[in-house]
Each structure stands twice: as C-alpha cells, then as structure tokens.
C-alpha cells in the first residue's frame, strides 16, 4: 500500500518510481500512476490487438458455411467464437486504461487505428483454414506468450487466458494440413498453395524490422514488449521450418537454410514494399474487411438502441 499522496511528488519522481516498479517486475494496475505515454502506447497496442481478433473472424468466418464435414464445421465455429471472446477481453483491458470501446472501434473504421495486416489477405480454399491456424495463430502465439509477462497487469492476465486457446487453434490448423498432406494429390497441392500464399504475410505479422519500428525501444524499456520484432520473427521461422518438413510441404523461400553458426534458420528479406502497402490500406481485402465491420456496426445500431431504451424503460417501471 502506498502511504504517500501523489501530489508530494513531481512527475520526474513519479516516473522514476514507475520505472523502478517495472524493473522489479511489479505489475502496473489500472489505478496506479503511469506516464501518459505509457498509457497511450498501451491503448494503441491493446486496441490494435482487439481489432485484430475481431477482424480476424472474417477470413475464417467466410468458410464456416462451407466446412467439409460436421466436425470441422463445429471446430471452426468454436475457433472463430474464441477470437470474438479474445476481442472482448482485450477491449475490457483497454477500458481499464480509460479508453472507450466504441471510440477505439470507430478509430479502426476510420483508418486511424490499425489491425493485423494478415487479415487483409483472402482465405480462398479450405486449406487456408489450416494455414491460418498453423501460421497465423502460430505467429500470434509467439507474440502473445511474450506478452503474458507484459508490465500492465490486465493485459498480461488477458494474454494468459488467450494463449491457451491460441495454442489449441494452432494445433487444429496443423491437424487440418496434416489431413490434407496425407490425402490425395489434389489435397496436398491445396495445402502447398495455402502455405505459398500465407508464409510471407505471416512473417510480416511481427511488424517492421527493428530499425524501422518507432515504438520498439520505449516499449522494451517499459516491458510492454519483451522481445523485438526481429527476435520474435526469428523464433517463429525456427519453429515453423521443421513443422513444414513434418508436413512434407516446402516453404516458399529458396534461402531458407539452417545456419549452424547462428543456431537459427537464415531466410530471405521480406518484401517491405508489400508490407507498407498493405498497412496503408492497399492489401487485397482491406476495403472488404473494414466495410464488413462497419456494416455490422451500422446494421446493429437499431438493435443496440432498442436494448438501451428497453433497459431504461424497465428501470423506470421498477422505480415507479
């Protein structure tokens, strides 16, 4: 329990104590003092993360009605529902910082807030459900396992819960691909094609290279982030390469090779032009994704109003 009042300290002193807490691995909680920039940085990151979960429902949701059998349909429904749940936890975590959920959503719709660019790529075959689970949830796990120890308490706790479900999603995705790779030539070709299309966008999920990442250094100091983008990307490649071998699929990168000296896989440079273009809104599905989310919000307006009005009427009747 802190026995002093905040007014006893100037900002510099508060920031010093704040950093000491971070350094001692003490979690920051909603009512604790925190620098404005820390709060802003977190709101940006958590809301971006929440939007990604929700927009991420669209490419996979698009395959629920066409899932090839009853079990796959149920598993995919449950998966996409989990993602909606992740969105909810994260919006709640964001609200503990004083952000307004609907405002952050509007910011995304207006292009002021980002979501993960991976969801701007189309899901065109059933094998994409496998590739998304394996690679996209797989990349998300790399990021999120690190975030389980992030310095902001509510975010860290949301991540612990989310990570368990994400690793389940990854296993399911890998299992979809395993089934295809054990199947007919046509099925194996479908799996390879999905890997060809999703490999590079998955590597882009870790964000710009460290040298081009504007928020990285401060985020590391505040222990919002524990690893840099490039470190996480390397971890991901190191994990995925042997998994592709197990599947019998070829990662579409001629330079992908185990480097004995580095004890890591080497891989080609990402096409950063494509990365920045998609981020700027020029990916294959940016417009469709935003349009779908905007339509959901607009078409739901009268429903939300009805619920609010009904609740007010009921409260009035109770007091009357």
């Amino acid at each position, binding site marked *: 329990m802190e026995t002093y009042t905040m007014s006893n300290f100037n900002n510099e002193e508060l920031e010093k104590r704040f950093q000491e807490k971070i350094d001692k691995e003490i979690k920051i909680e909603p009512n604790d003092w925190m620098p404005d920039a820390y709060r802003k940085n977190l709101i940006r990151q958590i809301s971006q993360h929440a939007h990604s979960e929700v927009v991420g429902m669209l490419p996979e949701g698009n395959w629920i009605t066409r899932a090839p059998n009853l079990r796959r349909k149920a598993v995919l429904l449950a998966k996409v529902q989990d993602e909606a749940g992740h969105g909810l936890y994260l919006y709640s975590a964001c609200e503990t910082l004083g952000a307004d959920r609907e405002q952050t959503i509007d910011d995304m719709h207006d292009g002021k807030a980002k979501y993960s660019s991976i969801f701007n790529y189309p899901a065109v075959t059933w094998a994409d459900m496998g590739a998304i689970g394996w690679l996209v949830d797989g990349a998300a796990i790399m990021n999120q396992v690190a975030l389980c120890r992030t310095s902001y308490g509510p975010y860290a706790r949301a991540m612990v819960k989310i990570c368990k479900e994400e690793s389940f999603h990854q296993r399911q995705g890998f299992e979809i691909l395993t089934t*295809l790779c054990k199947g007919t030539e046509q099925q194996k070709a479908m799996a390879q094609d999905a890997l060809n299309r999703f490999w590079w966008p998955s590597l882009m999920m870790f964000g710009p290279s460290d040298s081009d990442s504007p928020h990285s250094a401060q985020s590391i100091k505040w222990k919002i982030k524990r690893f840099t983008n490039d470190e996480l990307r390397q971890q991901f490649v190191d994990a995925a390469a042997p998994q592709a071998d197990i599947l019998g699929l070829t990662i579409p990168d001629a330079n992908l090779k185990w480097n004995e000296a580095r004890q890591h896989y080497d891989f080609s440079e990402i096409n950063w032009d494509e990365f920045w273009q998609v981020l700027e809104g020029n990916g294959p599905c940016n417009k469709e994704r935003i349009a779908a989310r905007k339509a959901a919000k607009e078409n739901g307006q009268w429903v939300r109003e009805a619920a609010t009005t009904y609740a007010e009427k009921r409260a009035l009747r109770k007091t009357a």
Partner: protein
Amino acid sequence: MQETLFQYLLRLGDDSLILGQRLSEWCGHGPILEEDIALTNISLDLIGQATSILKYASEIENKGRDEDKLAFMRFENEYLNTLLVEQPNGHFGDTILRQFFFDAFRKPLYERLTQSKDKQLSAIAEKSLKETRYHLKHSSEWVIRLGDGTEESHDKIQKSVENLMRYTSELFYEDKVDLDLQQKGLVCSLKDVKQEWDKTVRAVFHEATLKFPDNNWSFDGGRQGRHSEHMGYILADMQYMQRAYPNMKW
C-alpha cells in the same frame, strides 16, 4: 430398418442442421460482439445436436451412410427440415424471431422426448433440452427487448412477425411417421407441444407488445422434402467441398 424412426430422426436432425447453418452466417457480423458470440454458440449447439441425431439416424438406416454423408450428400428433396429454419437471416430481428419460434417449439418437444421408450432418443433429448432452455431464454429476451424497445425496433420485429408466422404451423405437422412412432411410445404427440408453444408465444408477445397477424394463412412442405427457393443456395454452400472433391477425408 425402422423406416419411420429414420424419417423422424431426419426431420429432427435436419431442423437443427439447417438452422445451425443459417445462424453460422452471422459469425463476424453480429450487431454487437456479445451477440456474435451468443449466436455462434447457439449455432454450435445446433450443429452438435444435428451430429448426434444424424449419427443415430445412420445407425438406424444401417446402409453405410454416416452422419456426414447424411448431412452433406443428400439431394434437396431428401432434406426434411421445416421451411421456417431455411428462411434467410434477414436483419437481427428476423433471425431472433425465427429462433424464438423454433425454440418455443423445441423446448416442449425435447421435454417430452426425454420420456421416449427409445433410450438413445431420450438421451439426445435430455442433453439438447439443457441447451434449448438457454436458447429460448435468450431469444425470448431479445423479442421482448426489440418489441418493447424503440419505435423503430418495434416496427421492425412486428414486420418479422407478419413474415414468419406463416411458417410456424408446419412445426406441428404430423403424418403416419409420427402416428406410428406415437403408438410405439417412442415420440410424443405434437398437439400438446403446440398448446405449450401457443402459451409461450402469447406470453412473450404480450410483454413485447407485439400483435398476431390478421392473416393466418400458412405453408408447409419441408417435412416431405418440398422446400423454398432458399434451400438450394444453402446446400450449394454447405455441400460445396463434398461435391467438388468427392470421397476425400478432411
């Protein structure tokens, strides 16, 4: 084979399957994230019910068609769901009202089927009843909220009533399939299910300030495999993979 039991199970299973399929179209497009999750949940329950019912139907038929073959490889006129469940989602109010009409039918039906002399059917009913109670609570609450909410929401869902009421009498359609199984004590009469449905709908409509339509003309045909134009599109989506890539494992 017990032909009538097989037919009955297809009617039961197809209702769950097609409504589950319809609801799943909402995933990612709900009016609020919480409702997205709720609708997906109901869809998931219905797909689960369809799976156990069609699995049992497959055992009864005993011709080597498993639950997936039954779900994905029949022709349109072999599906025996009611016309109500294949109606388009429309707006949220249309979907909720369709769900409410269905839940208000399914709850008393499952309550009675738990008493079936057929142990497997009663076990399926037992498990599904728990889910259906929750579905009915959810859909009733929303019908009331929308009916007694704003003027706009009231008008919208009143229109849904005018559109969907004509598909409700088919829920209680009975023919020799039902009569045969009723005599054997396997299934219940739908007459008292209908009475309970009336009671539920009247009570919820009263609270929701909704009116019954003047015109009580109604449709049927689904139970005999005669469907609306919507059904072909539902199956085109649902069967796409199985038709495009026959005999493969997924």
